């Protein structure tokens, strides 16, 4: 029953698909996905919160590589 109540709150699939085809959505999506993709790339190259306590050596190597 709870599951049913939840399903009822969801936007219908057809409506979601319609929204995602609007120019308004595409404008949003183009800029927001760019920011996210750049941040993902940054994280792959360098983790700012690498656990320095446990991985100090690893970190130092990375830090040097970055400079």
């Amino acid at each position: 029953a709870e599951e049913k109540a939840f399903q009822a709150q969801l936007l219908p699939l057809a409506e979601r698909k319609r929204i995602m085809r609007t120019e308004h959505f595409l404008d949003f999506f183009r800029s927001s996905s760019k920011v996210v993709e750049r941040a993902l790339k940054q994280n792959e190259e360098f983790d700012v919160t690498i656990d320095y306590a446990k991985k100090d050596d690893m970190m130092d190597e990375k830090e040097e590589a970055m400079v």
Partner: protein
Amino acid sequence: MSSEVEETMRRIIKHVGVQDVIITNKEAKLIYHDSKTSMSAKDAQKYASNLTQLTSQARSVVRDLDPQNDLSFFRIRSKNHEIMVAPDKDFTLMVVQNPSASEDGK
């Protein structure tokens, strides 16, 4: 969904460590949801609601410092995840990544 959106989504979800991609409208209702961790739509919706609330709180902090300014992006690092939120007036893109996955993969 346009092929442009599909292609970008595929690229995002393929990034190392990316677990969940969620898009909501301004009422925080799910418009899109993809997951590598089989997060249910229900959990995704709950998560999105929490992040939407946090987004408006972050927005007030930003405007409190400078009323002309506006929130454009925020990221939350925890031990195991990075949550990224790119909010716009009408939609919000949220991505959950496990950044240490890239370490393990090397």
